[in-house]
């Protein structure tokens, strides 16, 4: 045990929620200070820059809803990744699973005879299955052949990307797309409702929140949730407890990849109303969702907050591009810095400051 002025520094095994929040906010603040150097290098006063960003995102009635719009796919994919990471499965493939979900739901929207009221639900089901199927191969390869899932899920992203290209340039190219690489547009019944006055497709957002809630409940109460927790935290104990890692990880990944697939449904049914170039369907949400999940530290409900936060970061990047005329890559700098400061500060979570001005005994006892 060490001392820091009048505080004593103590080790803790399970940090309190408030402490996690404090450390996380501190890390984000530190990252913003570090990012200030970038503004300064561009000849922009960092304080002014942040003021402009605030005015252009949270304080702007037209821009604020855009945060929700970007948070929706981040939340769905992020909730899925929370589960995968808890099962110690390094799913870097949410981007590809999102695209697979978009493809599956486009197939249903354009080519299925399902009648109007059931079309959207069917698209979500198809999107979930599409995403889950896309995640199935890397999962099986890891479980059966010990193929590193980081690389295989990542490679599957590229395979998904070129598959979408093939579809929109080939068999699914729309008759009304004037030669451009789009499918035909979805019928009205396949389009998600918007919050009036905004472009936020709220059903996706509701679905994300519901999924986060359900997952939190399930992890805390259900047998399988318990198994996933044990498997992630202590694989040896899991073996003794008779937990079948194959079944557990397979189910966790099916959910994880399926959730990312749902995010893809939201993008095509809520925004584009067609399938289009993969870089347009997802603006890197599958990768950013990794930050969402990591920030949430395994807590599905926290993912709601962290997805909103990442949505805010994306929106801030948009403001920087317009109001500060900065290069578009500046968003990546922010994401990278925030992620670095967050994981860098993680060690602090296992310590706690205790107000103990006269407590010298603890110090000597520890030494």
């Amino acid at each position: 045990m060490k001392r820091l002025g009048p505080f004593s520094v103590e080790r803790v095994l399970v940090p309190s929620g408030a402490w996690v929040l404090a450390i996380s906010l501190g890390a984000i603040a530190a990252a913003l200070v570090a990012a200030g150097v970038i503004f300064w290098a561009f000849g922009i006063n960092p304080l002014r820059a942040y003021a402009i960003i605030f005015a252009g995102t949270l304080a702007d009635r037209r821009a604020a809803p855009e945060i929700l719009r970007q948070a929706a796919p981040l939340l769905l994919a992020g909730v899925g990744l929370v589960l995968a990471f808890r099962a110690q499965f390094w799913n870097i493939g949410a981007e590809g699973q999102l695209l697979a979900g978009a493809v599956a739901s486009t197939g249903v929207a354009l080519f299925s005879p399902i009648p109007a009221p059931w079309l959207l639900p069917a698209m979500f089901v198809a999107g979930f299955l599409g995403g889950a199927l896309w995640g199935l191969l890397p999962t099986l390869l890891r479980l059966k052949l010990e193929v590193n899932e980081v690389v295989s899920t990542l490679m599957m992203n590229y395979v998904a990307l070129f598959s979408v290209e093939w579809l929109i340039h080939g068999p699914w190219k729309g008759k009304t797309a004037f030669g451009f690489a789009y499918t035909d547009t979805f019928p009205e019944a396949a389009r998600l409702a918007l919050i009036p006055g905004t472009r936020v497709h709220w059903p996706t957002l509701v679905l994300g929140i519901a999924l986060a809630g359900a997952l939190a409940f399930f992890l805390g109460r259900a047998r399988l949730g318990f198994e996933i927790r044990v498997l992630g935290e202590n694989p040896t104990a899991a073996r003794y407890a008779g937990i079948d890692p194959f079944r557990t990880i397979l189910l966790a990944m099916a959910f994880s990849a399926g959730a990312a697939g749902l995010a893809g449904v939201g993008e095509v049914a809520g925004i584009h109303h067609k399938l289009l170039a993969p870089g347009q369907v997802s603006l890197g949400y599958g990768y950013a969702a990794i930050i969402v999940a990591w920030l949430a530290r395994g807590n599905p409900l926290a993912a709601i907050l962290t997805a909103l936060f990442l949505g805010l970061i994306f929106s801030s990047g948009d403001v920087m591009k317009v109001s500060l005329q900065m290069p578009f890559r500046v968003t990546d700098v922010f994401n990278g810095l925030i992620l670095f400061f967050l994981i860098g500060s993680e060690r602090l979570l296992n310590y706690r400051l205790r107000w103990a001005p006269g407590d010298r005994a603890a110090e000597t006892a520890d030494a």
Partner: protein
Amino acid sequence: MRWLTFLVVLVLAGGLAVPGIAQQKLKAGFVYVGPIGDYGWTHAHDFARKIAEKKLPWLETIYVEKVPEGQTESFIDKLILQGARVIFTTSFGFMDGTLAAAKRYPNHIFAHASGFKRAPNVATYMADFYQVYYLNGLMAGAATKSGKVGYVGAFPIPEVKRHMGAFALGVRAVNPKATVHVRWIYEWFNPTAAKEATEALIAEGADVFAFTEDTPTVVQVAAKRGLPSFGHYSPMHKFAPKHMISGQLVHWDKIYVDFLSKVYAGKYTAENLANVDYWWLLAEGAAELGGEFGMPVNPEWKARLQAVKVGTPDLGRLSVYDLVMKRLAQMSDPKVTFEPFTGPIKDRKGVLRVQSGKRMTVGELNGMEWAAPGIVGPWPKEP
């Protein structure tokens, strides 16, 4: 009644003062699809934006790069919040977003590049250079020794197919046995892919190159092997001063200056744009032949192009250099006395695509999917 007279005078004075207010600056916002450093499409628009700003002292501009299609409206909101009164959206994918935003801002003026939907406050514009591609093709036909010309294509969409088609027609006009070999990279921007695609074409024996990709990679790769090429979109001469024969250059600034001047003069308003469509080519100065502004053909290549003679139905026998200059003059003429896509033209499968004596319409050009004769290689969605 005196006070009334006074009031009338005051109102009149106020009315006269309005033109004085109109002398203030006009702010235009540009929505780009790529990064401005791509050295292709977006770079060219940004270059033109700067020229327009220089030429029009009353113009202020603001831009935003790398805008996703799904966020067109949100970025238009931001630009308008910054005070932009005229918005240019520079990609086909921005079409629906532009029209939706135009409905919400009925007093603002919009112009959308490469689309076909207009509204009272939305005009459309496009600078195309299939004509210049044809001229490049003529020179490529003369420059190839192996009879194989290489083309690195971005995406198999009508715009690229049209350019490749015009290029191939040019090649065949000089060298009826030559072929144009195609490789697709499925990206507007991927220098590594463009490089390997070029290398693949070189390995197959291609010895002259043209391309559609937003970097000078193909030019650089060809030059390293001592092989000639044609630039694309931006001035790329400096990347291969000895080996680049020519290329296509775009002048979006001509359109921007024309459009903005008319807006400033009050000729274009938010009510009368429904029929304003710019389809500007060589004759309007929106396209230019060359690898560097003001240099239609690299002087290093002039003698070699003059040495190759070719027969034509309308101009008799002449050198390729003279043919290029004649055709350039014909297409730059306001009457456009020559047009590459004039029938009869059969596609590479032998199907008659353009009736004898007919010219392809703008609509047909914009929807062109067929492959011109002489093109070898995959052609997705070939009719």
